[in-house]
């Protein structure tokens, strides 16, 4: 039996906008295929050893909570997270988690707050919040030979820019994306995937959820043959109804 260990970073602090739905989606979609998926909560004061996990998740938090984790990250977790990214572990960072994995966050007063520096992106505070439903097209996911469109909801004040070596996750069809300027959304570096699309990203976009699961299984079991398809009627209905509403 295949087994995946999922590391949910700071679930009690970084859990805005239904982020845990993504963990639920990963876990359920494994269970339905008889793949064991264990979720481990790693928070303040816990030790993190990146080798123990196959998938990492970090979500967004409010300013109050973000400041709490700064010290804790300096206490050893930062190096482990960078190692995990470099080693090609599957990593999903959303909203605040996306920003945190980057190099720095520049506040409106011009102060640069150092972030983890795990991927080559950086964020500048914007003067308006970029809020609303978002649809973006992802090259590496296919749906009936067409590029897969991810649907979600974004809500961020920071504008994120990608540096060398980092590719966008997708092209914005509707919404703002990383910065509301260059038409791109999210970031991909090795097996690390970042996006501003928070909340129920994975449940509603099962192709993306399965892509992450498959990469993690391939990492761990090089002879892995591929995922068995699931009955995604409800997921597809949700996906299609929103796609229709937002792109037609």
């Amino acid at each position, binding site marked *: 039996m295949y087994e995946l260990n999922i590391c949910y970073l700071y679930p009690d602090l970084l*859990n805005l906008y*239904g982020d*845990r*739905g993504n963990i639920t*989606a990963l876990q*359920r979609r494994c269970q339905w295929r008889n793949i064991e998926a264990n979720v481990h909560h790693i928070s*303040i004061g816990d030790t993190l050893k990146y080798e123990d996990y196959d998938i990492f998740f970090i979500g967004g938090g409010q300013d*109050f909570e973000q400041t709490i984790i700064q010290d804790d990250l300096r206490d050893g977790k930062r190096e482990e997270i960078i190692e995990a990214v470099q080693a090609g572990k599957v990593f999903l960072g959303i909203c605040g988690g996306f920003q945190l994995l980057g190099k720095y966050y520049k506040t409106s007063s011009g102060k640069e707050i150092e972030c983890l520096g795990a991927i080559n992106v950086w964020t500048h505070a914007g003067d308006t919040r970029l809020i609303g439903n978002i649809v973006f097209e992802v090259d590496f996911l296919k749906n009936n030979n067409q590029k897969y469109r991810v649907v979600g909801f974004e809500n961020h004040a920071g504008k994120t820019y990608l540096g060398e070596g980092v590719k966008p996750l997708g092209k914005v069809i509707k919404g703002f994306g990383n910065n509301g300027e260059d038409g791109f959304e999210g970031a991909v570096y090795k097996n690390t995937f970042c996006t501003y699309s928070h909340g129920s990203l994975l449940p*509603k976009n099962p192709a993306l959820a399965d892509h992450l699961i498959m990469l993690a299984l391939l990492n761990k079991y090089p002879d892995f043959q591929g995922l068995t398809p699931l009955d995604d009627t409800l997921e597809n209905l949700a996906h299609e109804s*929103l796609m229709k509403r937002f792109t037609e």
Partner: protein
Amino acid sequence: MKEFFIKFRLGLAIIITKLTVFGLRIVGRGGTSLPGKIALRICPDIFNRLSDRFRIIMVTGTNGKTTTSRIIEGMLQKAGLEYISNKSGANLASGIATTLISALSLTGKPIVRTALLETDEAAFRTLAPKLKPEIVIVTNFFRDQLDRFGELYTTLNSVREGIQGSPESRLILNADDSLCASLGQDTSNPVIYFGLGDKVYPEDYLIANADAAFCINCKSRYEYLSSSFAHLGHFKCPNCGYERPTAQIECTQVLEYDNLSSTIEIQMPGGKIAVKLAIPGLYNIYNALAGAAVGHMLDLKEEDLVYVLEGFECGFGRMETLSVNGRELKLILVKNPTGFNQVLKYLMTQKDKCVIGFAINDKLADGTDISWLWDVDFEILSFMQEKVRRFFVSGIRAEDMAVRLKYAGIPSDHIFIMHGETELVYSLLEASNENETIYLLPTYTAMLDIRKSLKKRFNLKEIWE
């Protein structure tokens, strides 16, 4: 001369506002915000001008504002005070201006002296310093539609600033909510706290989804002696010592608790009272305590407090029981994770078989982001599957809700997507047997749609307030 103009503008604002209200009524509309908007345009400092004409009570906080306000109305009536109050949909500056002006004579004299104002948390920041309320009740702070309010701590600080601008106000605060209780720290305002006694309602502490697990002063993780729900409970910070304050109004025992009512014992400053609340749900115990605190401030006798609390039944939408084609239909508004979780826990107290419907919209008044559905513990519904055969979902976000239920462990073939509220109600009626209760849980605008449909298609008489 300047004073004359200010008075003139106030008078003009009053007259025009009254004319607007009158005009809207003639054309058959009951608008509450437009008249106030006009008044504020004509006389921007109208609140400062009106504050000393009224004895003002303001109710704010995330959940329970409306229910608490209705309980307070009972207290005011019992105390023999004539009052005006605003409707829950009119809790911003404009609605409050309309409400206050409606209680003035054409010459600006107050017709009634007491004003009970349910106030939006963000609006409270600027309104409280101007209105200088005599009493302020803050129910609690939970995450609520973050796309509208910004962060939870921003909301808390709005209320804090409002209170700082009104240092004479007597505060009634939730002791069990570390965020709400913090409003009573380092303040000169007199404070009364309400809360549940230690281990009165013991429950597992679900830290993973808590809104405030870390100390507001020093950011250490709180320790809990016991908890009631979400982040409410007997918290203590091991580092700086900030802890749940002593509650002067405390529920010391829950004697009975089911899906219709709860019987509780309340320790008041003057002694203990036992009350049978006709409104179920733990969250309503908190609302009752807040109401009792106001009764105490109004010097009501204990038997009067009991009379008001026992006689109270739910108002518009929070939870009401309707009879539709011979079936009992319970309509319960859902609007944020904590409130929704409480409703689900209430459903768990249901002993017999029942049918459940959800109607989820994502219009502005519902919150345009429905990600919060993933913060609701629908997982507990999987324990109800013997009692609930089918789950119906409708609304603009019906499919999202269906997916949420599936991932909560409900088999796909038990989930039915309905198109429109009329089809939803028909299906619920069809799916239920004679003795089965129908629970229908809509978001705000979905509730309005359902009411419209019930009125039109099911011949339900006037169900508006």
